[in-house]
C-alpha cells in the first residue's frame, strides 16, 4: 500500500509541474501587452519600462518560466490587476465559499444518486427505471446557469420558499454575528452553536447547491445503475443468493460494494467539474466564492487572476484524483495487489 501511495504521489508531482508550465504558456498567449494593461492607457515610456521590469517581462522566456515556478512554489501567484491584491490571498478569501457549495452539492448528489441507481438496477426495464434513467440524463444535460435562474425565480421570487441570494441574511450579522474559525460558514455556525445563523446559511445554501448537484446526481445515478447491473449477473452474486441472502442485501451490500470504486472515481472527477460549474451560478446567487471572483476577473480581463484561479482549481483537481486513487486502492484490494 505504501509503495502504491508513493508511486501515485510521484506521478502527481510530475503532473503538477506540467500544470504550472501550461498556465504559464496560456499566460503568454495573451495578445497585447500585459505591461501596458498594468501601467494604464496614459503611461509614459518610462512607466511602461518600469512596469515591464516589475512584471519580469524583460527577461528571456526560460528565465520567466523559472521565475514563475519559483513564484508559485513560494506563494507569489501574481497580483490581480483588478483588486491590486495578491492573487493567492484573493483566492484564499473566495475559495471557502465555493468549496462549501460544491461539498454540499456532492453530498446531495451522492445521497440521491446511490439510492436512485440501486432502485433503477433492482427493477430494470420497468417504468420507474425508465423514469430514473430519463431523469439522470436530464440532469447531465442541464444548462446550469439557466437552471439557477429558473429555480431562483420559482422558489425564491414567486413562491418565496427560499432566499434568493447571498450566503446568509445580512440582518443576522448584527444580532448573531458569526465568529470565523474555519472560513466555512456552515461549519463555523455549527461549532459555535449559532443556530439562527446555521439555519440561515443552510437555507441560503439550498438553492445553489441543488443547481450544482444536478450534474453529479445524474452521473452517479447512471453509474451506480450500470455497475450494479454489470455485477448482478456474475457468479459471485448468484453464490450470495444461493446462500440465502435476501435481494436487498444482494443489491445493497454485495453488488454495491463493487460499485463504490467507480463512484469514488466519479466524485473526484466531478468535484473539479462542479467547482468550475459554480462559476456559472455564483453571480446569480450573489455567492461570494471563486466563481464570482472569476466572473469579475473575466469581465475586467484580469489575466493574473484568471490564471491564478485556473491553477488553483487544477491543483485541487489533481489532489482530489490522488486522494480518490488512494481510497480506491484501499477499497479494492486488486488494485494494490497488482
Amino acid at each position, binding site marked *: 500500500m505504501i509503495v502504491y501511495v508513493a508511486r501515485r504521489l510521484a506521478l502527481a508531482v*510530475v*503532473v503538477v509541474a*506540467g*500544470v504550472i508550465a*501550461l*498556465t504559464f504558456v*496560456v499566460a503568454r*498567449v*495573451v*495578445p497585447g501587452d500585459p505591461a501596458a494593461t498594468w501601467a494604464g492607457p496614459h503611461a509614459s515610456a518610462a512607466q511602461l519600462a518600469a512596469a515591464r521590469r516589475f512584471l519580469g517581462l524583460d527577461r528571456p522566456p526560460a528565465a520567466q518560466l523559472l521565475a514563475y515556478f519559483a513564484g508559485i512554489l513560494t506563494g507569489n501567484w501574481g497580483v490581480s490587476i483588478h483588486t491590486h491584491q495578491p492573487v493567492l490571498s484573493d483566492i484564499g478569501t473566495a475559495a471557502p465559499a465555493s468549496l462549501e457549495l460544491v461539498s454540499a452539492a456532492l453530498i446531495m448528489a451522492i445521497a440521491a444518486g446511490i439510492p436512485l441507481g440501486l432502485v433503477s438496477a*433492482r*427493477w*430494470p*426495464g420497468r417504468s420507474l*427505471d*425508465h423514469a430514473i434513467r430519463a431523469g439522470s*440524463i*436530464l440532469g*447531465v*444535460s*442541464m*444548462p*446550469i*446557469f*439557466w*437552471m439557477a*435562474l*429558473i429555480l431562483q*425565480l420559482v422558489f425564491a*421570487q414567486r413562491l418565496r420558499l427560499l432566499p434568493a441570494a447571498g450566503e446568509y441574511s445580512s440582518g443576522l450579522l448584527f444580532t448573531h454575528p458569526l465568529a470565523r474559525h474555519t472560513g466555512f460558514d456552515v461549519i463555523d455556525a455549527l461549532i459555535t452553536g449559532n443556530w439562527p445563523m446555521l439555519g440561515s446559511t443552510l437555507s441560503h445554501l439550498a438553492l445553489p447547491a441543488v443547481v450544482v448537484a444536478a450534474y453529479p446526481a445524474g452521473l452517479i445515478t*447512471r*453509474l451506480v445503475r450500470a455497475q450494479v*447491473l*454489470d455485477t*448482478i*449477473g*456474475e*457468479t459471485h452474486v*448468484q453464490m450470495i443468493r444461493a446462500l440465502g441472502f435476501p*435481494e436487498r442485501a444482494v443489491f445493497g451490500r454485495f453488488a454495491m460494494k463493487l460499485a463504490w470504486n*467507480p463512484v469514488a*472515481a*466519479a466524485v473526484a472527477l466531478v468535484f*473539479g*467539474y462542479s*467547482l*468550475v460549474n459554480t*462559476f*456559472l451560478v455564483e453571480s446569480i446567487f450573489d455567492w461570494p466564492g471563486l466563481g464570482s471572483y472569476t466572473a469579475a*476577473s*473575466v*469581465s475586467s480581463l484580469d*489575466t493574473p487572476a*484568471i*490564471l491564478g484561479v*485556473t491553477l488553483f*482549481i*487544477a491543483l485541487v*483537481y*489533481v489532489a482530489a484524483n490522488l486522494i480518490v486513487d488512494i481510497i480506491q486502492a484501499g477499497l479494492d484490494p486488486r488494485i494494490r495487489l497488482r
Partner: protein
Amino acid sequence: MIEAPAPLPPAATGLRGQARWRGLAGNRLMAAGGLMAALIVIVALLAPLIAPLPGDADTATHPFLVLHPPSARHWFGTDQVGRDVFSRVLYGARVSPLIAAAVLVFACAIGIPLGICAGYFGGWLDEVIMRVTDIFLAFPPLLLALAFAAVLPASLTSLTIAIGITWWPWYTRLIRGQAASVAGRAYIESCRALGIPRRRIILRHILPNSITPLIVQVSLDVGGVILTASALSFLGLGAQDPTPDWGLMVSEGESYFTTAWWVVTFPGIAILLTAFAFNLLGDGLRDLLDPRRDLLR
C-alpha cells in the same frame, strides 16, 4: 409454480455473463434521442423558412416592441431590443450544433493522429504524448476552455478553438489505448513480416479497428460541447450580439428575468432539449456498440 419477485426480462445467458436486455431498452432511448436530434437539425436547416421574422436573428431591432410577453404574433415574446425570441431561438439551432461539430472535428483531427502514433510506435513517443495529455486532463474541461477563451478575443472562432484545445486529449488517450492493443495483435506482426509498408498497416488495419469507441465517445460528447459552448457564451466569452446564440440570449435576458421571464426561459429550454437529445442518442449508441465502456470519460 414458484412465486417470484419482479423477474428480469429474458436474458441470453445463465450463470455466466451478463443480461443483455439492456440492449433492448437502449434501442428505445437511441430512437427517441435520434428523433429529437434529427428534428433539431431539420429546424436548423429550415430556420430561414420557418422563422416568422428572420431579420430579428440578425441586426434588426424594434424599439417599440421591447419586452412584449408571448402572444399570437410573437410566440416566445420579444427581447430587450424588441426582437422576436421565437425566430432567434430557431436560428440558434444553427449555431450550437455547428460549434459542436467544429470542435469535435478539430479535436479528432489532432487527437486521432497523435493517439495512433502513441499507440502504434510506443516507446518514448508514447510516453511524451501521454504526459502531455495527462497535464491537459488535469484540468476540468470548462476551466481550461475558460482560460483560453478569456485570453483570446471573444468570438465564436476563439470559442471553438478554446474548447477544441481542451477536448483533444481525451481522444488521444482513447485512440492510443485502442491502437496499442490492436498493434499488439498477432496479425499485425504478420503484416510487418510480410513487408507491408507502415503507412498501409496504420491506415488499413490500425485505424479502422480503433475507431469504434471514438465514435461512441464523440456522440456522447456532442451534448457536453453544446453545454460548454453555451456556458462560455453566457459568460460573454463566445458569441457576441447579434448572433442568436442560446447561451448569449440567456445572459442578455438575465437582467430582465424577474419581469420578462420569456427571454431567458425559451433559449434555455432549447439548450436543455438539444443536449438531452444528443445525450440520449449517444447513450443509446453506447449501449448498442460498446456496452462495457466506463460511464466516466
